[in-house]
């Protein structure tokens, strides 16, 4: 194939030869709809009427052969390729800021094979998580992955961002859920990691692509763990005296070898809302909810042991009714009227994760960075701790400024200043740039701070080795020129 200069039209003609005419879309309506994700900047800009960087075409491959041919073609012609799943991220990760083409994976949505002996399922990346879960539930299984965007996002998107669901304290992140990945590399070759992820046959190279946000290739097949549907669920809810005691209770539960599938611990501000809205009571302290699932006897024993640990911390038991409500409505809070999405208020989540010895300092430093640093704008900080491990826990903070500056440049500057101050406070105290929403465009400039300049060189080296023409999702993950496009 010879390299040629493409007009938009000739490019689309060539793409149609690869994936068929029905699978190349250049409708402005689709481009507009794919131009907005859940990131505040995207929404803010779109409704100001700003012109957005747009792809020349959106392509819907139907199999890995088409993906490989597409990527090979784009590599030859140095055309940027933006892989896309559900497009519902909050960091601009699937925006075509450098033009080129968007490769939408949603027509690759088949379950290829379920293995009930090894408890695995082999899936194409474009399946909605909701549909995969339904497929499994019909057969008595579950993937135990329930993130906020469960209904709308694709498994491939979750793998590419190394996402996390509400049951992560027991079942982990996507990196823990994946056995094997098949990936089309930027030169069009197809890489398949080993069929198991516990081996001594070199590094587990599937890890290179989990969380890579499509900067190193396009995932075309995923082998995931599955579990039998649980026999029983049980919950405990307590009000604990303060943040420090609550973190210690959580640490003890995880360190004791118990396996809560859910552990959610809320700071004082969030707890105030929970007590008022769900318990109709006033009070101070921090709210803790713990859940167990699995075989009935194991759930009963673990619930009893967790109850003992929490009781020793002088917690006030609040029963399990509200926890059950939370579980049953676990996705409800992501529907409008969700102020974060519906209002032009400036918001962001700044989730991070740190070891237990650092986590309280990380929390206090982030809170101070937002409220002390930007109090004059009415910045409000609140957080919960929702993904617990035996070595540490995540913090899921959000900030919000309702009175967003009217001037565009001032608003952008303020947004980045708050985000930078908050994340850098986390990094300085032992946290990382992000825990489960990924980097995208939103946090790309901070990733060097997170790794340190020398360590980040390795990431750049890997990127350059795999993608010398920088065609794969340029500008994301701090690997490119996203900032230059005004993001």
């Amino acid at each position, binding site marked *: 194939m010879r390299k040629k200069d493409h007009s938009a039209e000739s490019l689309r003609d060539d793409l149609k030869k690869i994936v068929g005419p029905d699978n190349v879309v250049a409708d402005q309506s689709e481009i507009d709809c794919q131009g907005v994700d859940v990131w505040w900047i995207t929404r803010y800009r779109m409704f100001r009427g700003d012109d957005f960087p747009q792809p020349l075409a959106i392509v819907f491959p139907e199999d890995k052969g088409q993906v490989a041919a597409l990527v090979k073609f784009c590599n030859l012609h140095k055309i940027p390729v933006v892989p896309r799943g559900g497009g519902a991220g909050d960091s601009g990760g699937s925006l075509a800021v450098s033009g080129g083409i968007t490769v939408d994976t949603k027509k690759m949505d088949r379950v290829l094979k379920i293995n009930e002996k090894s408890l695995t399922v082999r899936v194409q990346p474009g399946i909605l998580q909701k549909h995969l879960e339904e497929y499994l539930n019909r057969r008595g299984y579950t993937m135990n992955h329930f993130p906020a965007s469960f209904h709308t*996002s694709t498994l491939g998107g979750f793998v590419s961002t190394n996402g996390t669901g509400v049951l992560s304290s027991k079942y982990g992140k996507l990196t823990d859920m994946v056995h094997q990945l098949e990936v089309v590399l930027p030169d069009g070759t197809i890489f398949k990691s080993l069929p198991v992820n516990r081996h001594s046959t070199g590094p587990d190279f599937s890890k290179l692509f989990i969380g890579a946000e499509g900067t190193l290739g396009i995932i075309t097949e995923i082998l995931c763990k599955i579990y039998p549907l649980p026999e029983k669920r049980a919950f405990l809810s307590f009000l604990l005296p303060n943040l420090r005691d609550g973190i210690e209770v959580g640490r003890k539960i995880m360190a004791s070898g118990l396996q809560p599938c859910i552990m959610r611990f809320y700071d004082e501000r969030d707890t105030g809302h929970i007590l008022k809205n769900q318990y109709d009571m006033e009070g101070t302290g921090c709210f803790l909810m713990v859940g167990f699932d699995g075989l009935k006897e194991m759930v009963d024993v673990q619930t009893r042991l967790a109850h003992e640990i929490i009781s020793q911390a002088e917690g006030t038991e609040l029963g399990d009714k509200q926890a059950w409500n939370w579980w049953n409505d676990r996705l409800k809070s992501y529907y409008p009227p969700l102020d974060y999405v519906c209002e032009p208020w400036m918001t962001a989540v700044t989730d991070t994760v740190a070891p237990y010895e650092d986590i309280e300092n990380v929390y206090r430093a982030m809170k101070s960075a937002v409220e002390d640093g930007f109090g004059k704008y009415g910045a409000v900080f609140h957080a919960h701790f929702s993904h617990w491990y035996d070595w540490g826990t995540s913090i899921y903070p959000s900030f919000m400024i309702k009175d967003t500056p009217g001037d565009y440049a001032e608003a952008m500057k303020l947004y980045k200043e708050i985000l930078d101050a908050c994340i850098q406070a986390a990094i300085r105290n032992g946290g990382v740039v992000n825990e489960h929403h990924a980097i995208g465009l939103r946090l790309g400039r901070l990733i060097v701070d997170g790794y340190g300049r020398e360590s980040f060189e390795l990431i750049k080296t890997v990127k350059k080795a795999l993608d010398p023409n920088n065609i794969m999702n340029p500008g994301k993950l701090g690997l490119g020129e996203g900032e230059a496009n005004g993001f």
Partner: protein
Amino acid sequence: MVFDQKTTEILKMCRCCFMCRHACPVFLATKLDADTPRGHALLISRIDQGLSEWTEDTIDKIYRCSQCSLCKELCEFKWGEDLVVQAGRENIVSGGREPEAVKNLARLLIDRRPVHNKPAKEQKLQRAAVRGGQTDVLYFAGETAFYKHPEIVEATAVVLDSMGINWAMLENEGSTGVELFELGYSGEARKVAGDLAGRIMDIHPSILITGCAHAYRAFKELYPQWGIDALQGIQIHHITEYLINKMSEGVLRLAQDPALSGVAYHDPCQLGRKMGVYDAPRNLIKAVTGNPPAELFHNRGEAECCGSGSVMYLTNPDTAIKVARRRMESVLQESAKSVITACPNCKNILIKTDADMHSGVKVLDIVELIASQVKGKCEDKSR
């Protein structure tokens, strides 16, 4: 601002919310974000804010919605995305921008001319089942049954005659107006509806029954909303409700044949989700087969549209068929030998899809199933 306050509020809620993508049968068939409820809200919102103009492309997307309301059903806060599409279409029509296919269809509906290309067996039907004059029960077949699936009308005649019901049909039914309404011709819809209501009342029936789920919703829900109160004094039933009542009264007597088991039931959106009729058809199936129908994985309020909603099978047949294929795949997942539905429009698209897919599933309207098992069939005195 182009749209009213209620529409604007829904636009604000839905334009950046991704949470009902999984619910949209058109998105599931096309995989386009512009075909999602969020996509519709986003596109219309940009027009509302003066950031975009209507284009052929956006108009096409707004007409690629079956208005099945599954998005609303599965929305935790029940935001009326279907109202947004409705408002969008009304705005398109008021500006004379509707696609040619829509315009042509609307003209036929307004003029009470058949919208289906080939009025199959029409003449035979006229002889077999259509009767005028004074009557207790007026049966409204709906255009799809009358012209495309007269076997449904014939089956209805068998069932009604078996009970000795004094029934009749209108000579030229025409549209209920619901199709025009859903296409954005709200004013014309009201006129057509008012005319039909007047013709119905000329016959003075005490009971109005219909096997068309769209017509049922029109008579029972939309006419009162539109201020058409001519039908207020008469009972309005979907045929399944009417037959269940007759069965409980001992008037409708059915033979039970377990060999007919193994059927699945597809909930028509208009009958189930929009009008809440779920049990009557299931109970009738059970009465005839001895067993409840096999449930499709998404059923009752969460049933996915078959693609015929909002006359999409006439305005966007390719998209409608793609939607129908997904629904037929759900039937195949249950290993059902046949699928029963309770709306001629559902039957119409499912039977075509079944043929395209060579799936070998028999598609029947529920009245056909009932007609095969009625006891004491009466001679039709009009024949």
